[in-house]
């Protein structure tokens, strides 16, 4: 996404300004947003797939429906859940 070839000098110059402005103004915001988003993702998996940690919450019949979508996150999620002192840390 970042390493795109720019055909025209002027265009890439504009692009550079745009990215600089993005970097100064919005990068931190979007990083914070992504972080929050990731925490929420973990919280979401906890409340749907809690059984994986031994916390049964969602009726298993329906939690199976969601399982395919969270397969990639499960490894990092487990690590995070077991690392954090308090599950509530993941919420905020």
């Amino acid at each position, binding site marked *: 996404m970042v390493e795109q070839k720019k055909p025209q000098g002027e265009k890439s110059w504009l692009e550079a300004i745009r990215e600089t402005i*993005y970097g100064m103004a919005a990068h931190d915001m979007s990083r914070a947003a*992504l972080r929050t988003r990731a925490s929420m993702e973990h919280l979401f998996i906890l409340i749907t797939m809690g059984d994986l940690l031994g916390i049964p919450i969602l*009726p298993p019949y329906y939690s199976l*429906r*969601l*399982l395919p979508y969270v397969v990639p996150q499960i490894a990092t999620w487990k690590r995070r859940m077991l690392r954090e002192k308090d599950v509530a840390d993941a919420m905020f």
Partner: protein
Amino acid sequence: MGLKDVFLQHPERRYIMFGGGGGVGKTTFSAAAAYWLASQGKKVLVFSVDPQASLTDIFKRDIFGKGPVQIMDNLWAQEIDADSHIRTYQQEIRQKILDMYGLPAVPEEIENYIQAASAEPAMEESAIFDAVVDVVMKGDYDYYIYDLVPLGHALYYLSMAKVYDEWINKITKLREEMREYEDMVSRLRREKENEQDQILNELHYIKNRINTSAGILTDKTKTAFFFVVIPEAMVINDTQKAAQLFAQFNVPIAGYLVNRVIPRELLDQNIPEYLRRRIAMQDQHMGDLRTAFGDKVLALVPEMERDVTGLATIKKLAAIMFA
């Protein structure tokens, strides 16, 4: 007012349920009601949501897991095979995981989870109630007769539906909030629209399924719930408790049917003291039933001289129930 009048006065009640403790005659009454309605020219499906279903025994036909099986004109019976339903469902989940990520096999951890989830006691009930949604939604029949699980399980399912609904509302909200953060990042980065959140779609689907199956149980116009009781102290106590709980969950209770009443004509004959005492005991409990449920006691069905199996005896029983 009798059971027949209730049916004639409320033709809009298409979902007929028979509930009660274990062994009081739910299946027998379901079969007899289905027989009567079918003989009135209505197209009827009687099906069991009990993992220990016994429609096979009562109709003397092997119908387990075979979909709707025609028993006679206008009458079909179905027993849902929860195990095979769950196996098919598990396989669909596995296949979806393999397809989505192009994996050769399901990762061990995920496979373990699939196995563990399916061993949960609630799995069977959920699977059956979910299958029922499909059966009922097709709408091929005039009447759907539910041979219900014993009271405890039905209550469990109802309370489950209520909790699930709130729970799913909450996680749907969480998911929508997550979505907002995603959109915000996209806007900041000036990227194009995010693709649709598949999980959100699944959550809406799950919510819809749970609400539909619970909705049928609590539909005031289309559903009639009948308690089957026998004139014994413990059964009456349990039924009274259950009736209160069912009322709290807004289950429309249409009436009470008393099964296994010892024929009073026997009193004219020379019968042993033992039988006289049992009749006296039943008389007392019948009084309790009348005090508790009043004119909602719709039918008294005598203790039959033989097992109710096969269409001939079902017909006989239906004639008594719908006299």
